[in-house]
Each structure stands twice: as C-alpha cells, then as structure tokens.
C-alpha cells in the first residue's frame, strides 16, 4: 500500500507542477506531461523499472480517448469521411513505409528490418495529436478532420501490421532469443484465440466485434435507463467505466486492439441519448490516464543511448520528421486541402506514435528486430513525440500569422452542436424546443428524466440524458459554441444555481429562464438571467381574456384591456425589483409589501372607476376628436397656424 501511495504521489506531484507551467508557457499539456516524466525518470531517477507496468495501465487512457472519439462520430459522418480515410490514410501509411524502408535499405540494413521499421515509424501519435487538436479547438477544421481521418486509418492498420510483422522474422534472431520468447509468452497472458486455426480465429474475432456492435445497439439503452432510474450518479459513472474496460478486455482476449474496440463502441453509442453523460463521465479518467501515459513515455526515455551517439539519434529523429512531413505535404496538395489546413496536417502528423512502442515490443518478441535497434528506434519515437508540441508551436507562431496576412482563413466547418441549449424538457421546455426546431434552429436538449428523454426521442426530438446542472455536461452539450441557454428545469433552486453558474462560466451566452412566480423571477434575474418569464402569466391572461369574451365583452376591447394589464404589470415588476433587491425577504421588506399592495390597488381602481385609466391608455390613439372640433376650426384659424412658414387649408368636413 505504502509503495503505491509513494508512486501515486510522485506521478501526481510531477503532473500538478509541470503541466500548469507548460500550459502557461504555451507548450500544451502533452509536452508538460512528457517533461514531468523526464524529470522524475531519467533526471531525478525517483521512478524506474515499474514505468513499463504503469504504461500498460495508462494505455487505458488511449483506449478511453478512442471511445470518446467514437462517441463524437456518428456512423453517417464516418461514411462521409471514407474518401479521406482510405485515400489519405492509405497513401500516407503506404508511402511512408516505402520511403523509410528504402532509406533503411540504403543505409545498409537488411530489407526485412527496414520494412519492419518502416511499418512501425509510419504511425503517428493519436494521443498527442487529438489531445492537442482538441485543446486548441482545431478538431473541426478541415486540417483537423483530415488529420483525424489519417490517425483513424493508422489505428486500424495496426491490426494487419501485428499479423504481418511475424512474417518478417529473421532466423538468426529466432535462435538467439529463446529465453526472451518465454518472457514474451508470460507477458501475453490471457487469450481466447491462442492455437486456434485460421477460420475459427476469424469466427471468434467476428463474434467479438458483433457482440460490441449488437450489444451497444440493443442492450446499452435499457441497461443505462435502468441505471439512470436508480438516480445514483456514481453508479452511472461506474457503468460507463465498466463498459469501456469490458470492451477493452474483450478485444484483448481476441488479440484485437482495445482502442479500436472501444472506438467501435463509441460510434455505436454516438446516437444514444446517453452520449453526453457518458462523455462527461469518461472524460476526467481519460485525461488523467492519458497524462500518466505521457509521463511514462517521458520517464522511459533511455538517456544512456542518447548520450552514446546523440548526433545519430537526433539525425534519425529529424530525418524521420522531415520525411513524414514531406509525404504529408505532398498528400495535402494532392487532396487539395485548404490553405492552413495543409500545414496543420503536415506538421501535426509528422511524428511517430505510441503504437510504435507496442509494435517495437512485439517485433522484438517475434524476432524481427534486434533488441539494440529496437531500443534506438523507441528513443527515436519518443524524441519525435517530444518534438511534436514544438511543431504545433511552429504552426501557430509562423505559419498561421503568415496565412492571415495573405488571406483570411476560410471559416471552420459549421459546428454540429446546436446554437441553443435547452436544460429541462418537461411541459415547458418542450414547447420552447418545438418552436425552435420547427423554425430551423439547432437545439441540444438535456433532461434528467430518462423516461422523458425516451419519449422525446421516439417523437424524433434530439435529446440527451443528463443532469443539466453539471458543469461538465453543459460543456459536453456545446455551451462554448452556443448562443442561447434556455433554463426550464423543474427544480427552482437548481435553476437559479444553473443560471448563476452559466452566467459566470459563459458570459457571452444569452440566458433565458422560466420562472415559477415573481419571487423566482427576481432570483433568476439577480443570478444573471437576461430574460426570465413567468410560466403561468400568459396562459392565465389568456384564460382571463377568454372569460371576458364569454361575458360578452367585445374581443378587441378585451385585447386592449389585456394589453393594458400586461403593461401595468410589467411596469410594476420593474419598479418592485429595485425594492426587492434591497431585501429579498418578503416578510421583512415593508417598502416592497406596501408597494405590492399599492400596485394591486392601482389596477383595481383603474378597473373599478369605469376602467377609465385603462381605456385612456389604450384607446387614446383611436379616440375621435371633440364633437365641436370642425366648427371651431372653421371659426378662426389657430394663432400659430398663421405664423407657420407654410399656409394650408385645414378645413375638414
């Protein structure tokens, strides 16, 4: 226990110190984690051999990241991306393998080793690139989307690579590394598919994938709804974690990439009403585990090898980045990426990736690469990952300003999230939503009642399950990009809290809130709502008007009276807010109580005294002139009429 606590303390301490400093310096969190790892590993030496163990655990971060990526990606979008996915991704991997293998061959390495190195180094770092793109808000740009397509292709390509690499095994290495092999089998712990023949293996794999897709599609909803009905938030979080870890485990059992499996599950769940809740539940775990992963990469850098031949290593790293960048840039041109997007694509993907470590370890076990070369290459991979933030800085500081000078950047692809977030879709928020959707406005609807969400979805209304008062869920619903937040949740106090929080956190978003009564309306206004409307006011007024019509009052007169009532009420509401603000406690605020009585009285008086006040207000404009008005005009012209510069005959019959 003590040992674990010490480890946890060291890692967390390094992260908490290094990451904020790195962010402050504009380096991004990924570089912060890597530096933290280097400091506690090679520099201070406080962590050591266990980093490899921790790394296996931390790879869950990558798995969760792919799950979240999948959640963001509806199958339709994936299909729309197919050209970029296969074209850009396929060519990038293919060309990079060819170029690196050729370079290795020229340098005098045997062809099988050169090809293996090419395969391993052709991959880029999904973790670093996606994390950086989302931190910088570049995911939805055309460059970001192309990068994403290529990364996705690479992650899928890992599977055939794992199948292909053993074929490159070198006989000399096979004989040499027998004890190493026993080590490897020990590492390859559980597997359902060891020793299965080709077609049974294929069946088992297909079965596992089908389980993820069908289970995700048919079982997840009833399960989540059942859990949501319990009202226990932590159990929902536990279920989300269980889902991700369970799929990762299943994939490992059939020798598939866990990241790919959870990605698939994410895609399947992308249309689910629980998407935002799952997102905000998994997000913090992903962030921490991914951070841990980067720390272990930093801690695992073998500076001894670097010190032995720093020139060669740096040369290899820079050469690798240059070669990949060149190929990426050529592809960007070939696929006609937008200006700016092409550079983001080129510089963003030019490093080697974390799957490189996995493949290197696998290659050594499969006797494809000699241990020394693998160590060197893993250092090259780590160094190229370390240099990635520098490449992003290069993009931001040098390429972007130059582009902005020559031409305005094309607008980003329109965000798929709605411009109005509606919190609470009971009887009130539902009508608001219907009006907006019917008017062509994109909305994101959040509600805490899974049953309610279920009904709405059956009616074809896009809705998400979740507690709208949760900051992370609001964020996941796209509040950063939203123009308006409609607060229509039934819990009065939480509605006020939500308004206050949203006002602080999203100062630009207009907040429209439903109030239960005047006091609630004042509380909402005080909390920062731009508009607050009493839920019953208009309906009650309508019914009152209906009563007057039923009594035989002329409909237009009723209209005028309700207009007057509305005006009188609105004026009183504003005046009394000032008094209320001095002391919201109604029972002790005598000035307010007096004003309330006076206001009610003035309305009654106006109604009672032949309703003259009200009539005067509204009928004024339609009031005819006095009966003797024309005869007075015919008698003598007004005094000022004569003095005005133009003369007009104003006789009128």
């Amino acid at each position: 226990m003590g040992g674990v606590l010490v480890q946890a303390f060291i890692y967390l301490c390094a992260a908490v110190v290094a990451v904020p400093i790195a962010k402050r310096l504009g380096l991004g969190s990924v570089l912060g984690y890597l530096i933290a790892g280097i400091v506690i590993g090679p520099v201070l030496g406080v962590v050591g051999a266990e980093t490899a163990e921790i790394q296996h655990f931390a790879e869950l971060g990558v798995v969760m990241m792919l799950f979240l990526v999948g959640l963001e990606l509806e199958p339709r979008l994936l299909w729309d991306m197919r050209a970029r996915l296969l074209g850009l991704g396929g060519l990038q991997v293919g060309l990079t393998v060819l170029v690196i293998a050729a370079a290795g061959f020229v340098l005098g390495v045997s062809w099988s080793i050169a090809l293996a190195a090419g395969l391993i180094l052709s991959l880029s770092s999904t973790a670093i690139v996606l994390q950086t793109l989302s931190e910088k808000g570049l995911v939805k740009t055309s460059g970001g989307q192309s990068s994403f397509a290529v990364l996705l292709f690479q992650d899928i390509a890992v599977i055939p690579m794992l199948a292909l690499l053993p074929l490159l095994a070198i006989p000399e290495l096979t004989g040499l590394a027998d004890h190493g092999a026993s080590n490897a089998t020990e590492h390859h712990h559980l597997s359902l598919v060891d020793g299965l023949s080709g077609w049974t293996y294929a069946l088992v794999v297909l079965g596992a994938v089908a389980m993820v897709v069908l289970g995700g599609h048919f079982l997840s909803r009833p399960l989540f709804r059942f859990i949501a009905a319990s009202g226990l938030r932590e159990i929902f979080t536990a279920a989300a974690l269980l889902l991700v870890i369970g799929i990762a485990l299943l994939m490992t059992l059939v020798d598939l990439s866990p990241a790919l499996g959870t990605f698939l599950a994410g895609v399947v769940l992308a249309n689910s009403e629980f998407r935002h809740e799952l997102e905000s539940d998994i997000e913090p775990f992903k962030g921490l585990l991914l951070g841990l992963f980067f720390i272990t990469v930093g801690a695992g850098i073998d500076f001894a090898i670097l010190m032995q031949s720093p020139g060669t290593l740096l040369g290899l790293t820079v050469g690798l980045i240059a070669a990949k960048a060149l190929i990426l840039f050529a592809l960007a041109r070939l696929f006609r990426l937008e200006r700016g997007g092409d550079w983001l694509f080129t510089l963003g993907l030019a490093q080697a990736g974390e799957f490189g470590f996995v493949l290197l370890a696998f290659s050594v076990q499969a006797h494809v690469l000699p241990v020394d070369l693998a160590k060197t290459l893993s250092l090259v991979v780590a160094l190229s990952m370390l240099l990635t933030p520098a490449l992003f800085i290069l993009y931001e500081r040098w390429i972007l300003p130059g582009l902005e000078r020559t031409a305005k950047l094309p607008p980003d692809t329109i965000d798929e999230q709605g411009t109005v977030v509606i919190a609470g879709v009971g009887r009130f928020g539902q009508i608001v939503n219907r009006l907006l959707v019917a008017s062509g406005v994109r909305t994101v609807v959040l509600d805490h009642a899974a049953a309610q969400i279920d009904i709405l979805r059956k009616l074809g209304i896009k809705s998400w399950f979740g507690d709208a008062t949760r900051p992370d869920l609001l964020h996941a619903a796209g509040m950063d990009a939203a123009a308006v937040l409609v607060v229509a949740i039934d819990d009065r106090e939480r509605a006020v809290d939500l308004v206050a929080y949203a006002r602080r956190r999203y100062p630009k978003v207009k907040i429209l809130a439903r109030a239960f009564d005047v006091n609630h309306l004042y509380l909402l206004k005080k909390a920062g709502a731009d508009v607050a409307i009493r839920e019953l006011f208009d309906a009650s007024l309508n019914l009152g008007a209906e009563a007057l019509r039923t009594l035989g009052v002329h409909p237009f007169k009723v209209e005028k009276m309700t207009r007057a009532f509305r005006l009188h009420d609105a004026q009183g509401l504003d005046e009394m807010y000032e008094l209320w603000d001095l002391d919201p406690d109604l029972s002790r605020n005598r000035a307010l109580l007096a004003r309330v009585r006076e206001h009610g009285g003035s309305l009654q008086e106006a109604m009672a005294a032949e309703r003259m006040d009200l009539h005067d207000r509204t009928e004024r404009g339609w009031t005819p002139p006095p009966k003797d008005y024309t005869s007075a005009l015919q008698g003598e012209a007004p005094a000022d009429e004569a003095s005005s510069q133009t003369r007009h005959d104003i006789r009128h019959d």
Partner: protein
Amino acid sequence: MPDDQPPPYPRRILVLFAHPTQERSEVIAPMARAAANLPGVTVVDLYGRYPGFAIDVDREQAHLRTHDAVVFLHPLYWYSTPSILKEWQDLVLEHGFAYGSSGTALHGKVFFSALSAGGPEAAYCAAGYNHFTIRELLQPLEQTASLCGMFYLPPFALFGARTAVEDGRLEGHLQAWVRLLTALRDDRLDLEAAQRLPVLNGALDTVDREG
C-alpha cells in the same frame, strides 16, 4: 434612448420603414439599410419595433418632435401603405398633437413617401390599368400631411420593383435615394420646385441646388 437622440444636421430625417417580410424584400430593405448608414438619418423599423402592432404613442410623438422631415419607406400595398403605417397614423397623429387648434407639433416638417410599386410606370396614368398616377393615388397621404401642416413632397418611387434587381436598376435607384436624403438633410433641395413634380425621382438633377 440613444436612437431617439436628434442627429446634428440642418434637417434631421426620420425614416419610418415598414415591410412585413424583410427577408424577401429586394428594394425597400436595401433602401432602409442605405438610409441607416447615412449620418443624420434615423431609420425606425416599425414591424421590428412593434411586432404586435401595439404602438407606443408617446414614444413615437417624442420621436417626431426631434426630427424635421418624415419619410414613409414601404412597398405599395393596395395603392396605400402596409397596415402598420396606417395603424401608426391612426394612433400617433392625435388630435391636439398633429391637428386641431393646439396640434402644431408637425407644422413645417417635410413629408414624403418612398415606395416600390410592382406595376410598370406606364400603368400609373389615366390610360393605364391603374387609371391614376402614383401621386394621385397617394392623395390621402398628401391631404393628411396637409392637415398636419406639413410640407408635402411627391413620392420617390421605383416602378416594376419585382424585376429591378434582374434589370440592374437597383444600384442606380439606391444611389439616387442616398443623394436625395443627403440633399434634404443638408438643405440643398429646392423644396418649392420639388413639390410641383409628379414623382421625386427623375428631376433630382434640376431640384438639387448644389449637387
């Protein structure tokens, strides 16, 4: 209210803009935008300000007092204005404010209507299918202005408005519109000469004393 502040020019112009479907407007809405960009001109979007037709009489009257010229900017609907402009007249031009022995608030202010008409100009004459000239058709407005003691100018009209964009006539019309407002604002318009015209458009060159 900032938009109620009078602009600092020889003649402060108030444009009352009335179009119920602005997203489909090809002539009047661009004219409103052009006018809104002119210093010294206040444009009020009546349908925007009073979507429920509940016109605030006090506010409108205060607005009228701080301007020296009033322009109705509207498409011609049934040989008259869109309904909100009629409602505006019914409510705002009160006895005791706009007419009657003490109703002198509008005396001496310039008034005209800037409109778009669907039919071709040839249709607006005794021989055409509309039988009357546009100035004749707008006689109720002319007499209203007269009763209010205002200085009436003939309408500034764009005929065949449905094809103005396709025929390339809009740009020239907008330029003439801006020129007219500028001349009126800076008191360079020969009002007496303008008053005798059938429409304000064609004779801008002879009427604008300096431009």
